[in-house]
């Protein structure tokens, strides 16, 4: 009611008097107030319902739904209130340029010069200011040092894995594998014995078909090849094998590697082949590594080709 009084009187239109319009406006506002009241009541009921849901054990869908109804109803009530009952109101505010008045700027500059003059004794002790700045900067640098404590620097970790001469090839359960366990097109995630689940030593063993020619970089056991399972692009496990085309596919960014071609990159964003693990069969007939991978596994880094200096 206060709102309608505040509004400027409108010009009569269509033969209706101002009193008629005022009455209509009142009616509209009363109606709106009723709807707003209903909305707030709905909000109260929904909130109580939320209590009931919660106390009787909770249920995610009902909790979300009651919250939605409660807050939605509050929103509707408020929207009716501001749009219809309060009604639109327009005010005009002045605006000034952001820049200070020249007089203020000058006054402050003078103040700054005179007080800085006191600090530097008329400019004669300005070197003190410079040294203090220097001290502040050096201290700032010194305070960066704790960041270095967060982790050891890389030594040769990126060049080494748990694989090495004579280390047996085991599956996810830690069971050693024999060549005769592997059939063509079979794929096994393998690890060095004693390091099952290792992030950097994970490898993928693929059973090769006899009728497909191979072009491999490392010595291997007939019908079997083992590559690092870490994509050389962004380090995801190369988890998919498309046996029909002999391609290992990384599901993250879709690099594909040709299993029969020394894991050459066939498509996708990877920049280099998956390193191949040189393998042989030991005296007891199990698959073993001849050595560690001969190039670093995983995503490339700047000193990749320099070796670890060992």
């Amino acid at each position, binding site marked *: 009611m206060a709102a309608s009084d505040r509004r400027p009187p409108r010009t009569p239109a269509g033969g209706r008097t101002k009193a008629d319009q005022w009455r209509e406006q009142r009616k509209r506002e009363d109606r709106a107030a009723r709807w707003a009241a209903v909305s707030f009541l709905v909000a109260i009921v929904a909130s109580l319902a939320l209590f009931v849901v919660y106390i009787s054990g909770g249920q995610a869908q009902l909790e979300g739904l009651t919250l939605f109804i409660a807050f939605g109803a509050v929103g509707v009530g408020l929207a009716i209130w501001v749009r219809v009952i309060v009604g639109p109101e327009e005010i005009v505010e002045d605006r000034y340029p952001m820049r200070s008045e020249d007089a203020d700027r000058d006054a402050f500059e003078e103040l700054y010069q005179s007080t800085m003059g006191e600090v530097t004794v008329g400019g004669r002790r300005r070197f003190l200011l410079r040294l203090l700045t220097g001290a502040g900067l050096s201290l700032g640098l010194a305070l960066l040092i704790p960041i270095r404590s*967060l982790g050891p620097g890389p030594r040769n970790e990126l060049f080494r894995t748990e694989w090495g001469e004579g280390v047996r090839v085991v599956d996810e359960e830690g069971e050693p594998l024999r060549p005769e366990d592997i059939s063509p097109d079979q794929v096994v995630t393998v690890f060095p014995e004693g390091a099952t689940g290792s*992030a950097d030593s994970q490898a993928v063993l693929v059973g090769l078909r006899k009728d497909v020619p191979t072009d491999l970089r490392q010595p291997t056991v007939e019908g079997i090849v083992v590559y690092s399972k870490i994509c050389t692009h962004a380090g995801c496990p190369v988890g998919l094998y498309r046996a029909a085309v002999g391609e290992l596919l990384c599901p993250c960014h879709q690099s594909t590697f040709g299993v029969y071609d020394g894991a050459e990159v066939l498509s996708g964003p990877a920049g280099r082949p998956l390193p191949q693990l040189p393998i042989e069969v030991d005296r007891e007939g199990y698959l073993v590594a001849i050595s560690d991978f001969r190039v670093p596994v995983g*995503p490339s880094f700047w000193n990749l080709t320099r070796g670890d200096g060992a």
Partner: protein
Amino acid sequence: MSTTDESRRQSPLDDVARWLDDRLRLAEGTQRYWRKAFPAHWSFLIGEVALFSLVVLLFTGTFLAFFYVPDTRLVVYDGPYVPLQGQEISAAFDSTLRLSFEVRGGLVMRQIHHWAALVFVAAITVHMLRVFFTGAFRRPRELNWVVGVILLLLAFGAGFTGYSLPDDLLSGTGLRIGYSVLLGIPFVGPLIGFIALGGEYPGTDVLGRLHILHVMLLPAGLIGLVGAHLAILVRQKHTQKPSKKATNTNVVGEPLFPNQTLTSLALFAFTIAVLAMLGGLFEINPVWLYGPYEPFQVFAPAQPDWYMGWLEGLLRLWPNWEFTILGLTIPSTLLPGVILPGLIFTVVGAWPWIDARWITKDHEEHHLLQRPRDVPVRTGIGVGGFVFLLSIFIAGGNDVLASNTATGLQTISAILRVGTIVVPLLIGWIAYRIAKGLKENEAAAARATRSEPASGAQQ
């Protein structure tokens, strides 16, 4: 009616107000802002949606933090989710499952939190587009544009650290990719990667560190900068659409009280309502289906949260250019993962200066908004840039596209590689031509009315 008597009736609130004013001298300042003018246009409310989403994030996040354990040590799962019973999982994953299945109201809180994060970044993005295409970033608002861009970066950071916390298979894969991109930075990459994780991947400390970033440093940054964003806004006052009334030296709008206050409260309630509905009815990030993170496992198709999609798309589409010069290897992730995103954010952050220096050549103070047609070059570049981000975002789902359209992945990627260059240029150019045409037509119409002063006077 004795309304005057009624309005003077004492209420406890009056007493509190007087008590506070006695001590803090509040009446003068409050009076000035009580009727502050807010230009009434729906597009001005998008930023508020972002603000309200942030409030929801802070409240739901606090609740989650009471239950989450940032610890990778293994425990045996003995909760009610049958498929994982008896399995060794990290304490972090265990606490996420407990929060989802055993804490009453936990699942809805977790899902509202995740949805709110998605809406938060979405609202920031749309708000930013509004500011961009209406030239609201121009002097004197360059500073607030930059604050906004930093807020967007913090929101990315908060999102990424947040969805990495549950230690599920999807989040672990995301972390692995992030670490790999860091590793590829020349000279310092391995050091940065090791420092971030406390050693070689997967490290031992990563969850604790992500946690403290996610619940303390990033929220502190977000709250602080949102405060600065609003303080600068109040200081500089709102921009407005030009009209007969609205000029460069005034602000025409609804008063803070009661109109804007009630409108904002209604919007706040609607934002919470929608987020509650999403969180209650639409499953999001069901980590129990992904399973615990194992460094040698992965699933497909795997997509990050939407706002990471464009980065993911860049990584997917970029050709496998990797080379070694003088023993220095430049990995194929360096350009799409580090340099290009850095460049994009630099250009976006510096846009107010680029715009003033090369496009409008206008360094004056402006408080009136422009329409996209008013500066065709900016509109063209903006539309082209946005379409580019959109197309690399689509590329982030190239595997989904391939399986849904029964087209080969390589074909899709080849199309996308060409498309992400050609389509943005084309659409940007079309946008430029449309804006220019509209502008020229208007100018011609204005000239026509000016050249017929007689008929104009008769009207």
